[in-house]
């Protein structure tokens, strides 16, 4: 990266130029240190990919719900725990530590595969969500073996397959950890009418293998606790907060009590989720804020989300 050090503000007196240059050097050093915190790109991409698929499924469910009336309304109003927490949740986490092994896929009895089952291999990790000492760079796939093809990936997810299925398929097809390879190749096979050696949804969700996640849920905490903690800790998702809480519980620490205001935050969070699940984005929020003469797009998200939660509509399409 090219870094150019610019002169400080033109109004700086001559006597301060030396200290300005020193300040700029200190700033550059601190910003480089902060940049070094950046998580690994393949992991972020994998998580974005999975989140995109989750949102598409939610959108499809919401659209189906609009057609089916009450049934659809219930689906949006009472989402599954892992769907709610998965607002920024990775689809599957690798086993942490040497004592946990990855789940091997179970081929469907109706299909035949000649590919040998390789030794269990860790799935892609999401290191920025895991304790630093649990991160294993060797377990990450740095480059998918195939080019991304959105149509193939869509076909894969629309057939009911999950990210965990993709991890299982990747292992079967001897591309361990390369879920993208499995999604693209599997999706292409499905589009050509072929079946896959793993049934949709048959691979166990690897999320349950994350020790922090286990610690959080086994202590009796649920989705509302996670969302309240996310609010309390200023974390971007309930899932991130659940992992942090799980690690603290494992370390013997006590979790803070949710603040009284957390309840309303949870409701707001649900309204935002309903907004996103219906396929709306920031531009839509701005449009709606203008239409309803609301002060900010965020107010439009909350108002629109509450409407959607209640089975009502908003006057713009996603």
């Amino acid at each position, binding site marked *: 990266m090219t870094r150019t050090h610019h002169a400080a503000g033109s109004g700086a007196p001559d006597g301060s130029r030396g200290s300005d240059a020193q300040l700029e050097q200190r700033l550059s050093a601190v910003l480089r240190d902060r940049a070094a915190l950046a998580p690994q790109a393949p992991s972020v991409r994998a998580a974005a990919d999975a989140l995109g698929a989750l949102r598409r499924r939610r959108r499809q469910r919401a659209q189906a719900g609009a057609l089916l009336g009450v049934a659809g309304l219930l689906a949006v109003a009472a989402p599954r725990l892992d769907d709610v927490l998965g607002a920024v949740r990775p689809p599957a986490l690798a086993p942490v530590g040497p004592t946990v092994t990855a789940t091997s896929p179970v081929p469907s009895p109706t299909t035949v595969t000649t590919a040998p089952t390789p030794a269990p291999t860790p799935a892609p990790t999401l290191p920025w969500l895991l304790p630093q000492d649990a991160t294993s760079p060797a377990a990450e796939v740095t480059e998918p073996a195939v080019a*991304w093809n959105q149509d193939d990936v869509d076909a894969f997810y629309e057939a009911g397959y999950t990210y965990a299925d993709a991890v299982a398929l990747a292992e079967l097809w001897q591309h361990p950890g390369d879920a993208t390879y499995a999604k693209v190749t599997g999706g292409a096979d499905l589009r050509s009418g072929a079946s896959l050696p793993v049934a949709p949804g048959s691979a166990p969700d690897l999320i349950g293998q994350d020790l922090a996640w286990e610690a959080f849920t086994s202590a009796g905490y649920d989705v509302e606790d996670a969302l309240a903690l996310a609010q*309390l800790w200023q974390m971007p998702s309930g899932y991130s907060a659940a992992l942090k809480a799980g690690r603290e519980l494992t370390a013997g620490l006590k979790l803070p009590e949710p603040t009284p205001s957390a309840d309303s935050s949870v409701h707001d969070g649900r309204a935002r989720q309903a907004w996103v699940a219906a396929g709306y984005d920031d531009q839509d929020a701005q449009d709606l804020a203008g239409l309803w003469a609301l002060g900010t797009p*965020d107010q439009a998200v909350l108002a629109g989300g509450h409407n959607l939660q209640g089975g009502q509509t908003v006057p713009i399409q996603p």
Partner: protein
Amino acid sequence: MDVDDLDTLVRQQLPALLRYAAALTGDRDLAGDVVQEVLLRVHSRWRRIALLERPDLYLRRMVTNEVTSWRRRWHVRTVRPASAEVLAARADPLPDHADRVADHDVLSRALAQLTARQRSVVVLRYYEGLDDGEIAQVLGTSRATVRSHASHALAALRTAPEVQR
């Protein structure tokens, strides 16, 4: 442009975007989540982005806006990290390393006191190395405004008590 071009752009830009987000936020978790969110939006807006002359700058604008949005959304911070002074009081005497950590901490705290726009200008200028015209493109403003933000940011940093030493 087709999906392959999107894939290429993301592959080329993703590591730099993550570093930019981390420099801007100073938070590994937040940087990952912010860029993840941006990637999803890039996909849905690709047709528009593909028409831009400098999609790389537009991606940085998206990251900048997303960071601002997170900060607005989670504006009440109830858990704060221990200050450098508290840590130093408990730490073993390791002068060089302690100095570096302390400087990092005080400057990070001073950066956090800047406005979102000022902080973005500082990061784009002193980490990304962009010139004022490029920063103006990222922030959707004029060069003069960029210079004004930079000047005020540096003045604020210079006079911050914890930065002076």
